[in-house]
């Protein structure tokens, strides 16, 4: 069973549209994250939630809005999509222990045309 699962795996859409990516973890972790990986494979943190509370909010355009309905889910909604939003988005989670490794999902490849 996949520990951190994201849907959809692929998402192709046009500029200006609004889309959502869903993430669920069944590891019982309290903390969840969204990372963005660009075409050069560079990984950068976007957001982190701890038990439904926003902890980390990097310099991400406010077109990106995370939503955590419960501690097992962290969804990412993106408004008014732009070409530069094309990337692979990874969800991750870990336990509250400070040095607990992150577990990543397999990513959602977003292509904006």
């Amino acid at each position, binding site marked *: 069973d996949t520990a951190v699962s994201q849907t959809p795996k692929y998402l192709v859409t046009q500029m200006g549209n609004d889309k959502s990516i869903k993430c669920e973890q069944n590891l019982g972790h309290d*903390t969840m*994250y969204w990372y963005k990986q660009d075409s050069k*494979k*560079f*990984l950068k*943190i976007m957001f982190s939630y701890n038990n439904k509370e926003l*902890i980390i909010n990097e310099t991400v355009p406010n077109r990106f809005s995370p939503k955590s309905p419960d501690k097992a889910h962290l969804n990412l909604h993106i408004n008014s999509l732009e070409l530069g939003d094309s990337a692979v988005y990874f969800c991750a989670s870990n336990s509250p222990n400070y*040095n607990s*490794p992150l*577990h990543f999902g397999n990513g959602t490849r977003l292509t904006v045309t």
Partner: protein
Amino acid sequence: GESVGLHLPTLSVQEGDNSIINCAYSNSASDYFIWYKQESGKGPQFIIDIRSNMDKRQGQRVTVLLNKTVKHLSLQIAATQPGDSAVYFCAENLGIQGAQKLVFGQGTRLTINP
């Protein structure tokens, strides 16, 4: 700081040989470091970690070395296998209470030649 490279560094190794992947980190205050492996079409997978109060840690076929003086991290993979072919990332934790804030290196593509 963050590293952004124009090209992903590559390393080719013969199967069965040992490989060493190097990484420079930026923040002297970082106290936790992790190596991740990313295979094509998958998310990063945890390999091994090390805390700043250690300079070496060993796992199964992998060893991580930490040199805080020069802010350098390395990953040694012994007796490489075809399944070791992947992109490897180091990461340092600039975390805060309740969450890790991982800053990733640019990644190194390791290719194991049969």
